């Protein structure tokens, strides 16, 4: 039995230093395992893309013969370059438009007070509970009439990505909420209009969230499969990378395109990972800030 009130000074269990060493060793082992598990697919995809001996899945990881065959084929024998271009254009356009929309909405909701503000926020909350994909049935019909599908799908998709993007205002509103309100007030007393407050005081202070929003906008088209496949159908000229490459891993194409998929995957990942790692700091700020604010 443990004594309830043991006030003696003595060592219980291991000493401070020994116990720390043991726990740290365990943690290092776990972290190394995690690193291997998490990097495995990426290393795998990279290695398999250099295999020249076969197009199929193989029971080994390291290529028997290194070579760039699949990369060459990718650009000469498929529409991959077109898909890549489509996605890149969509990425840039979405980044710009989405940023404007989201920042406008979140700034207004965070800093300005007007009639209907609460109602607007509630409306967007409720709209957000519908599966967003549902709207595509009508949008597809309308876009089909306006010739914004298939070959022109990238344009249609830019509209779809951006039009309602302001509903995702939460993270940046959370950021704006942390800028003290007295800055606005001081500027207004100093003689600024609301517009001047916006671009002379708040915008210069909001670099992290602007970059975060741009980053999210840029990355969206690279990963989107569902909306894109809906508008594109099977038209190769209008595809983005996700829809185009998805077909390569279907049961019928798997044995001829598997390694090519890996090569394409590497090329797709490079720009996104480069941008992402360069701006990682801002991404982390956005994720943590947004989550803590809820």
């Amino acid at each position: 039995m443990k004594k309830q009130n043991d006030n003696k000074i003595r060592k219980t269990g291991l000493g401070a230093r020994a116990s720390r060493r043991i726990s740290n060793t365990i943690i290092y082992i776990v972290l190394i395992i995690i690193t291997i598990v998490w990097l495995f697919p990426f290393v795998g995809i990279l290695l398999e893309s250099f295999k020249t001996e076969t197009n199929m899945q193989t029971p080994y990881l390291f290529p028997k013969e290194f070579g760039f065959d699949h990369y060459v084929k990718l650009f000469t024998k498929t529409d991959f370059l077109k898909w890549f271009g489509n996605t890149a254009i969509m990425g840039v356009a979405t980044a710009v438009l989405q940023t404007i929309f989201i920042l406008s909405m979140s700034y207004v909701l965070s800093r300005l007070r007007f009639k209907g503000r609460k109602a607007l926020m509630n409306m967007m909350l409720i709209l957000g509970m519908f599966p967003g994909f549902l709207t595509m049935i009508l949008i597809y019909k309308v876009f089909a009439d306006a010739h914004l599908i298939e070959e022109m799908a990238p344009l249609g998709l830019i509209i779809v990505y951006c039009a309602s993007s302001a509903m995702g205002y939460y993270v940046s509103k959370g950021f704006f909420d942390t800028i003290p309100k007295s800055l606005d007030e001081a500027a207004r007393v100093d003689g600024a209009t609301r517009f001047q407050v916006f671009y002379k005081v708040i915008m210069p202070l909001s670099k992290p969230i602007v970059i975060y929003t741009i980053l999210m906008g840029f990355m969206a088209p690279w990963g989107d499969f569902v909306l894109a496949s809906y508008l594109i159908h099977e038209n190769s000229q209008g595809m983005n990378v996700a829809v185009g490459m998805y077909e390569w891993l279907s049961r019928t194409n798997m044995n001829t395109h598997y390694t090519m998929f890996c090569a394409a995957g590497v090329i797709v990942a490079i720009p996104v990972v480069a941008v992402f790692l360069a701006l990682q700091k801002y991404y982390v700020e956005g994720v943590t800030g947004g989550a803590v604010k809820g």
Partner: protein
Amino acid sequence: MASVKLTNVKKIYGKDTVAVQEFNLDIADKEFIVFVGPSGCGKSTTLRMIAGLEDISEGTVEIDGVVVNDLQPRDRNIAMVFQNYALYPHLTVFENMAFSLRLKNVPNEIVYEKVTKAAEILGITEYLTRKPRALSGDQRQRVAIGRAMVRDSKVFLMDEPLSNLDAKLRNQMRAEIILLRQKIDTTFIYVTHDQTEAMTLGDRIVIMKDGFIQQVGTPTEVFDMPLNLFVAEFIGAPKMNTFKTKLVCEGDKYYVNPYGAKIEVTGKKAEMLKGKRIGSREVILGVRPEHFVLSSSDNPEAIPCKIVVNEMMGSELHLHVVEDNGDKLIVRIPTVSLSDEQRASLVYGSTIYVTFEGKVMHFFDPETQANLLV
């Protein structure tokens, strides 16, 4: 350089939360007015209504005779210093101070001249190229004041500007604000919750509570003749002692009976009681701690009590004492008046006898809490 006039100003938040009401005040040109009161009393709200940062629910605010209710803050020609300074973190000290001038497209030479002049007065010339985060608390404070100074505005508003500083810097900046005031000679409205700041800075003090003005007057007026119990207890530190007791009128003499002692009301206070024709009645008696004196057990005017806390402040001694039936009093005694033996006897648990003079009493109505002599 302008007068400010508030007429029947009222502020309602939401549907029925009243923050300020029946606010009437004439502020003369170049006057230094201080709004003081506990937090939540509506003083900041009133200031922000004058600045145009809050809508005015009812009543009017005039600056220089012009009703400004509907004017944007920038059209009111006011300058304001915020509690947390509200310096723009992305601008240098110079650009912070120049911000309002830049908005008006003032030519650069004039901006330079005005900003450097203000910086010189405030002693921050060497920091002009720094960003605010590289400054200490009082330096930021100076920049905030400087930013308001370059405006040449009609009214200078300050919202608790010293409350973010530590005690020593606060005293220093307080003195500097007094000096500053002589240099920039304009109308000041200053909000604080600290009665010392209010007393030392203001030409006149507006004491507020729960949205109502309690009293407006010079520091001397509010100290000597508080209109009600709240003002009496709020102004002066440590706060005034109050106790329920009976005022007895015997012939043309008045007595009070705190805790069995019998003390005669003398001087001006007695005359005023007579003038008001007040008879025997229940009152709340107020006596400031510094008006108590030590006495001895044989004095019929003495109140016996026990020391529970002895605070040695250096030049004076604050004694927290408990009277027989549990009431607490604070007594303030200058240390010079005490002999060494006396000082040694003033320890926890010992019994002392205190009394006060007849001319320093304040009388309040137990029901309305109003000063009986006004």
